[in-house]
């Protein structure tokens, strides 16, 4: 799992709203930096890293909520929640498949057929989750999300 980036210059005595702009800028950049490779199913770590970055961003938004105008806050957090849900659906299947594939080798021969059927079903669900995720992580949607966060950051600094 990716470690959180430091927020340069964050100071406990700094005004809460100015700190908000600084933190959201770093956490949003973290989210977008992890977008590459999330649709791949051979390496499941990029998706996990983007999901964790999204959680951190959401936690920061909740922390600094009073510093933002309501409409702009809502305009940023709603698509973020939708993205988080789509990432979560994929991640649940990734985790289950990885666990079951690890277990298959040591499972008794009599259980292996059923395990293979279960893994195949989960692979189908993983593909379906990926189809739903694709639109959220497309260039156009990510650019629109980035714009909403830029607006939010600007509002906190005013």
């Amino acid at each position, binding site marked *: 799992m990716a470690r959180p980036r430091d927020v340069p210059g964050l100071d406990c005595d700094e005004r*809460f709203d100015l700190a908000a702009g600084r933190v959201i800028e770093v956490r949003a950049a973290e989210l977008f930096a992890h977008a590459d490779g999330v649709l791949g199913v051979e390496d499941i770590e990029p998706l996990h890293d983007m999901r964790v970055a999204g959680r951190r961003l959401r936690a920061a938004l909740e922390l600094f*909520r009073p510093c933002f105008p309501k409409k702009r806050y809502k305009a940023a957090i709603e698509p973020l929640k939708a993205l988080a849900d789509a990432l979560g659906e994929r991640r649940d299947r990734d985790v289950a498949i990885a666990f079951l594939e690890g277990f298959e080798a040591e499972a008794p021969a009599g259980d292996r057929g059923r395990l293979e059927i279960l893994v195949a079903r989960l692979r189908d669900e993983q593909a379906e989750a990926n189809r739903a995720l694709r639109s959220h992580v497309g260039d156009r949607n990510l650019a629109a999300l980035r714009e909403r966060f830029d607006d939010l950051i600007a509002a906190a600094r005013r």
Partner: protein
Amino acid sequence: MKAAKVKGLKPAKPLKPNAAKIVAVRLGELRGFAATALQPGATEAQHDMRIAAKRLRYILELTESCFEPAGKPVRHLARELQGILGDLRDAEAMLANATGITSLESLLHTRRELLFARFQELWAEDATAAALAELEDTVA
């Protein structure tokens, strides 16, 4: 689980007193779920406690320097709780799909028991109580 609203936050005031109010509320949420979550099979409360631990952890990642030295041990505790309770939830979810696969059911039951025991053990540790109490005093 929706986060409890934190009252009295002031955007024009410094980060530290605002963060202290938020951390105090999040600590209260974590403790509030513990009594029920420590009961075997209390999956909803365990899920809520995992979310509370996650919120506390991510807030402390940003603000623990304001609460030194009490912030870091609680961030570590929250991370461990989040991990154990997350693995417990994954095991529960997989059990729902494991019907009829005897070896898998058996493995998942054992895994669930071990994770639950680790959760109880971690919560009962003196170091856990001390870390939580120290941060509660710091943000009070």
